């Protein structure tokens, strides 16, 4: 399976997506940092502390990488069906299940690691830049950052699961546009924040919701290949 992943990687030139990843990380950080700095001029700072600062950052990270993963998903799965190269792929002496599993692992893995890496990089940047630039008043300690590590991993895993949901919509009409649109909708749906002024809440905060969505994504992934040996590739 590693070999198939490697070939997929090469075939789709996935290395070039690292540039996109870097741009996303910088973009998210700059956006949140500017919001923070800008709001301080008007005596009503957006983020009093590290926690608040990261809560918006995490929302952006989740939305961005659900969408980014759907781009990769459409590139390596949907496009293959759309352009019918899947037919060529299935005439190779490889187990079909493994082929699809490899493709889905790339999407899952990409989403998971991108979220970890971007969270890590932004955390490091915050830690070092906050004393200089003052994004928020309350100083942030290393231990505070470290306590967020387990949640980051759990969230990354859950979002990686969620990132497979667009597969269901995209495969119905083998459409790239549908795949990405559904990813945008899902991303906003589970991360959108509803606020009544004082307190705010988003679907992602009810732990049950991301778990259900993640499981849904994994089930969709599983369904896409569990009967693949019985299906005609027309």
């Amino acid at each position, binding site marked *: 399976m590693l070999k198939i992943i490697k*070939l997929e990687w*090469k*075939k789709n*030139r996935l290395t070039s997506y690292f540039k996109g990843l870097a741009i996303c990380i910088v973009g998210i950080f700059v956006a949140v940092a500017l919001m923070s700095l800008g709001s301080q001029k008007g005596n009503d700072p957006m983020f009093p502390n590290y926690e608040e600062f990261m809560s918006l950052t995490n929302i952006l990270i989740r939305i961005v990488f659900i969408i980014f993963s759907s781009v990769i998903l459409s590139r390596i799965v949907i496009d293959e069906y759309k*352009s*019918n*190269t899947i*037919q*060529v*792929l*299935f*005439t*190779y*002496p*490889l*187990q*079909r299940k493994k082929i699809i599993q490899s493709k889905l692992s790339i999407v899952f893995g990409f989403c998971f690691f991108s979220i970890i890496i971007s969270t890590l990089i932004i955390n490091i940047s915050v830690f070092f830049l906050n004393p200089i630039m003052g994004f928020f008043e309350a100083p942030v300690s290393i231990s505070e950052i470290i306590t967020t590590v387990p949640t980051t991993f759990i969230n990354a895993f859950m979002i990686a699961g969620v990132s497979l949901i667009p597969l269901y919509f995209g495969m119905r009409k083998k459409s790239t546009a549908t795949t990405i649109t559904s990813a945008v909708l899902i991303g906003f749906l589970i991360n959108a924040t509803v606020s009544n002024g004082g307190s705010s809440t988003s679907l992602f905060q009810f732990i049950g919701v991301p778990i259900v969505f993640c499981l849904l994504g994994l089930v969709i992934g599983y369904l896409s290949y569990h009967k693949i*040996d*019985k*299906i*005609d*590739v*027309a």
Partner: protein
Amino acid sequence: MNSVIQINQLSKTYRGTETVSNVNMNINKGEIYGFLGPNGAGKTTIMKMILNLVKPSLGEIIVFDQRILETSYEYLKKIGSIIEYPEFYERLTAKENLDLHCEYIGYHHPGAVNEVLEIVGLKGVEKKKIHEFSLGMKQRLGIARAIVTKPEILILDEPINGLDPIGIKDIRELLLILKEKYGITILISSHIVSEIESIADTIGIINHGRLLKEVKMEEIRKENEEYLEIQVDNLEKTTHVLKNKLGIKKYEIVGRHIIRIFEHENSSSQINKELILNGVVVNGIEKQQHNLEEYFLKLINGGNQHA
């Protein structure tokens, strides 16, 4: 005979319609098997079933003495194929596509890709991306991809579509070389008889999902006897001369001025002389042979009547 692909009572039903029905085929080692039939006859479906892309509803396919199961895939290593339109990864170059193909098959042979590009006449454009290729070039590249790993069986679904006459000739010669030099078994489909008539050893004729006939080319040639075709001004007078003066009984009137004679006792010059002497104007006289095209049309029309 050692058969490489054996198909027994194969049927495929798509949403209640039978597209392939009770087909039995036998493809022997080292032969070129021409698969003839009009568009939509079921050729592609059968080829896809051999490649396990489409699953049979009934019947079995045996490749290299092994029955193909839903989960079979190892045997595909030995098969090169083009099915329908040759699909490639459009963003990659011709060479990258072939390299990738070799890696997927697990065939590592430096120089093989260059060699095969040379064979199909695509040397010099290997660094071009596929989306810049014409249909003919893609078709050539498709053939290159099918043969680059030196498979034991080639399955080519209408490989000559979109090729220019020189390309067609090249491919025909290439297939003969592959058969003779490397002993590759080739299954090639077409709806144009003349395309494969000259290279096939066995022909399977298919229409409406049924295999109407599986026959050796040699037999077809034997079956399709020679005849003499004469163009005359007056058919009545001609038949009179043929029957009464020359004693010819086996003839056939095929047009208002054309008659065919199937007996060979009299030479064409004799017949010509006799007709002229009896006042028939002979506009043309020619020795001919039923070609496979007619044979094929006859079979397909016959098949229609039975259906």
